């Protein structure tokens, strides 16, 4: 199975070459995306088969480092991620076929796109640190190229630069983590790393480095700073992949490090990751609430959802460390489910944003409005995605957040104070982030699709091509399906989680279709299927009664608005005014939000002015000082380059001396 998957991946570099050779032909980019769609479908099916079959399939290729060779392996866990990745990739590729025609430089995207897919798929299949890091770097570098696709814009260049630095930092950290594991396990292949015996300090270092390395890719606060710059800068279908899918590869790496390699880290790492996740969720969604760029808003919402997944992973780790393995498997299954759900809904939302962008050329939600009349299909699909990501039943986002909450509610069963006090606080943070997500997406959907058009572009928009609409409708349907019949998926997921945790879930998630009762029958259960059927019956009954009861007359007239005629669309609530109450309540401390109103006196003719200032605490507090420090250091080190030959020789001599001393010391002190 692994061999077939590798064969399918091997097609992708040829597509890149094809795109390079035929870059002048106009329909090459569409062709490349169509081929990528086919490859993704094949890889997704292979992943699904691996999940259903269980077990692992190992392949060794005679390439790579001579003493290591290249190892590849697909087990249930990587199979599940192959499904996530290729589901998103297939949707994005199909969408891309016609979407690339709206881009300024489609050929640039077509060259890097297949390599991006290859990198992500190979990272999931790798079974040694070397091939993993090489694939990981392919993934980073090719997505970096696509962020730069529109490099004429100053903003995109800045985003790509920040991304490059953070990607290097992340890989460096992962390299360290693998180094420690390889030293303890005796080899760079993952099989020896699994059996590695680490002491407490080494284990902690691996978790810390893994958290920094994978966390910087996934968007863990405060390492998220690059993400809302880089994700929106790429073309929309690539943004969908970066946000919906690439973050999952990072979470896959983190989950492997935490649950699969070496001994289980101490429980308090679970508590730390849980709290970090809670903070990431709330901070991410608060940022999203303040954005006026639709794609940047979606990128910040990715930060939130990565936080939600991390809460689940943290709880699972804490349970595993305490030996409560069946609870650990539940929490892990919950976060896996949230990863799947998030990749579906985020792909849907980013592709929806892409449709809006293709049709209006506008990303600023302050300049959109009323698109529901002109793009009804896109609007309906986007609405489903917005409701799903706001964790509203009966859609998929609700089910996974419900499962994560249920496992958080078990947190106090761990007999130590950090988890006892931590889990209620994190549960409150999770609830807060869900409520704020609803506010964010009411605002986003309301400003883009509802109300009156705020610009000419929004007024003259038209629906996008059939294949683009089909992708949106398919993903929206998947959001509903994963929410209404979750049990079918969660029972598979619990098996994946069980294999990773190496534990048996007690009677857990499956209590017979369609009841989802994660812990026990009496602990709290949910059935999307039954609820949806009942709600539909209630609504249909209501419609029937009302139809029989009153008149069916409908008159159209001007809006009532308390008799307060609003001539211009600019009278409407804008995105900034919508966020104002929330900004005042939550932003005053976090963003030091300040509003100043300059109101002219009655006899003055100048316009009134409202100034709003927001300070990004992460940039101002962490990155700016760091960047200044690096520049300062570089300036000082500059002197080394302009020394005389004599001094250079002196430096070399001193270095040699230092190394001799180190060598001598190592001899003396073993």
């Amino acid at each position, binding site marked *: 199975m692994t061999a077939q998957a590798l064969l399918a991946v091997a097609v992708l570099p040829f597509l890149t070459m094809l795109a390079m050779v035929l870059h002048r032909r106009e329909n090459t980019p569409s062709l490349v995306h169509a081929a990528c769609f086919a490859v993704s479908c094949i890889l997704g099916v292979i992943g699904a088969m691996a999940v259903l079959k269980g077990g692992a399939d190992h392949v060794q290729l005679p390439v790579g480092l001579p003493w290591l060779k290249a190892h590849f392996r697909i087990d249930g866990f990587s199979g599940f991620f192959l499904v996530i990745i290729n589901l998103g990739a297939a949707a994005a590729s199909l969408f891309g076929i016609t979407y690339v025609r709206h881009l300024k430089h489609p050929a640039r995207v077509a060259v890097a796109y297949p390599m991006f897919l290859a990198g992500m798929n190979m990272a999931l299949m790798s079974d040694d640190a070397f091939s993993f890091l090489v694939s990981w770097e392919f993934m980073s570098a090719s997505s970096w190229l696509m962020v730069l696709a529109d490099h004429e814009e100053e903003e995109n260049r800045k985003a790509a630069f920040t991304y490059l630095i953070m990607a290097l930092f992340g890989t460096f950290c992962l390299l360290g983590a693998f180094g420690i594991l390889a030293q303890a396990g005796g080899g760079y292949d993952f099989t020896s790393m699994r059996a590695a015996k680490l002491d407490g300090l080494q284990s902690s270092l691996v978790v810390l480095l893994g958290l920094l390395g994978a966390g910087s890719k996934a968007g863990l606060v405060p390492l998220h700073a690059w993400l809302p710059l880089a994700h929106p800068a790429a073309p929309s279908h690539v943004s969908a992949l970066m946000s919906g899918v690439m973050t999952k590869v990072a979470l896959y790496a983190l989950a492997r490090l935490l649950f699969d390699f070496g001994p289980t880290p101490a429980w308090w790492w679970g508590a730390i990751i849980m709290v970090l996740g809670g903070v990431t969720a709330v901070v991410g969604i608060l940022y999203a609430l303040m954005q006026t760029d639709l794609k940047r808003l979606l990128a910040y919402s990715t930060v939130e959802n990565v936080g939600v997944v991390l809460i689940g992973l943290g709880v699972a780790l804490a349970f595993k460390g305490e030996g409560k393995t069946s609870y650990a498997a539940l929490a892990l299954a919950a976060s896996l489910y949230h990863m799947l759900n998030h990749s579906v809904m985020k792909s849907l939302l980013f592709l929806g944003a892409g449709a809006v962008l293709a049709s209006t050329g506008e990303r600023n939600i302050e300049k959109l409005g009323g698109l529901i009349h002109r793009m009804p299909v896109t609007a309906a699909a986007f609405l489903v995605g917005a409701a799903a990501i706001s964790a509203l039943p009966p859609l998929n986002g609700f089910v996974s957040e419900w499962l994560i909450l249920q496992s958080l509610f078990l947190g106090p069963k761990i007999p130590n104070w950090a988890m006892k006090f931590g889990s209620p606080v994190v549960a409150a943070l999770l609830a807060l982030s869900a409520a704020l997500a609803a506010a964010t997406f009411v605002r986003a959907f309301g400003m883009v699709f509802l*109300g009156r058009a705020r610009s000419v572009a929004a007024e003259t928009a038209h629906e996008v091509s059939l294949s683009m609409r089909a992708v949106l409708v398919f993903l929206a349907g998947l959001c509903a399906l994963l929410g209404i019949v979750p049990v079918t998926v969660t029972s598979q997921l619990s098996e994946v989680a069980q294999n990773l945790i190496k534990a048996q879930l007690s009677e857990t998630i499956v209590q017979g279709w369609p009841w989802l009762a994660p812990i026990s029958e009496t602990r709290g259960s949910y*059935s999307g299927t039954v609820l949806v059927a009942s709600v539909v019956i209630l609504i249909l009954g209501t419609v029937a009664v009302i139809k029989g009861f009153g008149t069916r007359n*409908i*008159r159209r007239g001007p809006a009532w*608005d308390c008799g307060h005629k609003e001539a211009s669309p600019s*009278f409407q609530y804008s995105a900034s005014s919508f966020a104002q*109450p929330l900004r005042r309540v939550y932003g005053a401390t976090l963003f030091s939000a300040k509003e100043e109103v300059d109101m002219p006196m009655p006899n003055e003719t100048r316009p009134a002015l409202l100034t709003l200032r927001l300070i990004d605490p992460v940039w101002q507090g962490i990155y700016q000082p760091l960047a200044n420090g690096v520049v300062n250091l570089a300036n000082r080190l500059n002197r080394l380059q302009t020394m005389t030959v004599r001094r250079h020789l002196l430096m070399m001599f001193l270095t040699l001396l230092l190394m001799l001393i180190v060598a001598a010391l190592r001899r003396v002190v073993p």
Partner: protein
Amino acid sequence: MTVFSILWQVLQTMICLLAAPLVTGFVRSIKARLVGRQGPSPLQPYRDLIRLLHKDLVLAENASWLFRIAPYVIFGFTWMAAALVPSFTTNLVLIPAADLITLVAFLGVARFMISLAGLDIGTSFGGLGASREMLIASLAEPAMLMSVFTLALLTGTTAPARIIDYVLAGGVGLQVSMGLTLVSLLLVAIAENGRIPIDNPATHLELTMVHEAMVLEYTGRHLALIEAAAMVRLMLYISLISCIFIPWGISQSGKGFEGILIGLVSYGAKVGTLAAFLAVFETVIAKMRVFRYADFLGGALLLSLLATLVLYVSEAV
């Protein structure tokens, strides 16, 4: 699953719809009496709803399909949520389909739709209402969930029917945390129902209004559905608080018809008492400024967090 559990479920679903206008009318008439007016009959809400149902629809020129389906979704989801709260018996067929978290989320769907409907026409009143509604929700939902957390810690479940079983079996006793959770839930209920001091259900055209601002453009049967949904929501919160904190009288599964009868009578008494309390509370308190909401609901959140901590300190769990 028995025939009876289906029968009681249907009965409960109908009661929470048909009695809801009476509860709202009852609160209104007591409030009128308390301020020295005679007030309309408690049956007035029924007449209002019927009148609205008979009226023609007037839609704003740029109303979209979302504006037209929203009332049905809001009403359907609120009604469904109300049908899931055990009121006179726990022997209901839909009980395992939803727990307290799901109930909160169902009300969240209604709120999501009503806020979007408020934004659909593109008037400043609608946006104002939607924006404030989302602020209130973001403060109230964590407080509500923390209360659920405390209850789950104490009783080991998030399902309302199981909580009732636990409390009736004497598993809780007199707990400080139960008291704190009750206060927190009461504050949340007041906010979520748009009652004084958060919102005034009787005003129009006031800068402090929230709920009324969002539904300003609705007429006829759409307005009737939205008004009915608001009444059902009030009924839901009253039922929820009474079933968790004063569950005595609720018929548990296995009890016969007398049990159901006792359940119905005690339910009526509980709802009447709580409604009267609400009327008195609303009469003696003044409306609050918008930016004081954070203090009010932040207080609710802190109370419920405190309830959890008290549980640990008193070593109840």
